[in-house]
């Protein structure tokens, strides 16, 4: 099999999939030249990620990467999330084939965008 058991498990049983009402931050990333898209919603409490939801459009690895990343980033500070690397997302699904690396890029990009949005809203409130 071309994909790891972890990836297939997340593909078949995605965790934290779906919409979130009144999120504290949202972010979208789309892979250029490819229709793959990930959208993340964050609930932030005391500066940390309390809840994550996602939607994706794309091939199986993108769905799995979004699901695995949603579990991995829970509890982190929003600032930490700003520097999330694609490699960490890839590690969360135990690796991606070369021609599917973009799944990690798009998921990491959307999570970073959501963190930036959350930070902006928080600063807006403070200001």
């Amino acid at each position: 099999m071309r994909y790891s058991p972890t990836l297939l498990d997340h593909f078949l049983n995605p965790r934290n999939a779906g919409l979130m009402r009144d999120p504290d931050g949202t972010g979208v990333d789309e892979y250029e030249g490819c229709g793959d898209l990930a959208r993340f919603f964050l609930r932030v409490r005391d500066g940390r990620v309390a809840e994550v939801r996602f939607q994706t459009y794309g091939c199986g690895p993108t769905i799995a990467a979004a699901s695995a990343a949603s579990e991995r980033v829970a509890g982190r500070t929003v600032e930490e999330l700003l520097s999330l690397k694609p490699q960490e997302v890839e590690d969360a699904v135990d690796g991606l084939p070369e021609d599917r690396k973009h799944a990690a890029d798009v998921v990491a990009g959307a999570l970073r965008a959501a963190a930036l949005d959350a930070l902006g809203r928080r600063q807006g409130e403070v200001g």
Partner: protein
Amino acid sequence: MSRRVYLDHNASTPVHPEVVAEMLPYFGERFGNPSSVHGFGREARAGVDTARERVARFLGAAPDEVVFTSGGTESDNMALKGIAFARGRGHFITSKIEHHAVLRAAQWLETQGFAVTYVGVDGHGMVDPDEVERALRPDTIGISIMHANSEIGTIQPIAAIGRLARERGIPFHVDAVQTFGKLEFDVDAVGIDLLSFSSHKIYGPKGIAGLYIRKGTKMVSVQHGGEHERRRRAGTENVPGIVGFGKAVEIRGRDMKDEHARLTALRDRLWDGIRARVPEVRLNGHPTERLPGTANLGYRGVESESIVLGLDLKGIGVSAGSACTSGSVEPSYVLVAMGVPLEWAMGAVRHSLGRSTTAEDIDYVVESVEPIVRKLRAVMPVGAA
């Protein structure tokens, strides 16, 4: 994984056991080169001759009108380039939904100074013979229209197009790789001058195919070397492949009719079962004028490769209408030419049935598809496609 269901027969088929048995001696005691004059060579030559006669009979052709090639791609290339270079200049007509073997050969001919018109198709993937007629020019030297498209299975009106070509003395090439051995037709009745056909789509081995060339068709060879295939295609014959191909064709002559009816019923059972359970699904291709075993279904708003992966994990082999390989995803050019909206085209899945497919297989696929599509739609943002 317990159950395995193969619904990708338009991609390739397993070699029929009777074909394997027929081939085996030609790997061993009958290994000779058919060009050799001694007994070893004559044994191999006899195998090739028998196969050629079987293929010719099936086509309604003469044995010397059949040239064996290495695959459908070579046959298509030989047909287009053979016509083109026998004439030196001129204009071709083909369609936008041809196999890449025809499309890219035609595109290459454009770089060599030939002109090509690519006619469109309607929403069912059907070429309009009137559009072919309107595309004709005084310098048209060839028409190439496929018999049925591998993705959607729509069967083209080749008899009407053949009449147009014959009235004007223009060579007519038909890529019949997906219909040869599945549909009954006679090259004379349809007015075909060149016909590509392949072995591994009809339970024969890979690496062997053929091109029918009507006697008197002006052609040049594109592969030079020895005197093989009446100097039309140089290279030592793939004897076991040819022998196997001949046997596969003979078996098709025996089984084709019954299988046509059986697969048509199973194909419709699949479509009826899925559309009864899954919302927002469409059939891509002609509702009736379609290959007996082909059902291309489009799921709105879902990415087809995800469905293929989901079905693969259930032991089911189907193929995706779009593929995201090197970081770019393109919907099928066939579906685009048909005008299928993007959000449907991206979710296209082809099911192609074959001789081993049973009603139980179809029911298993129908049951498996519904939860996969439902789950995928749950994670996919509405309208993202």
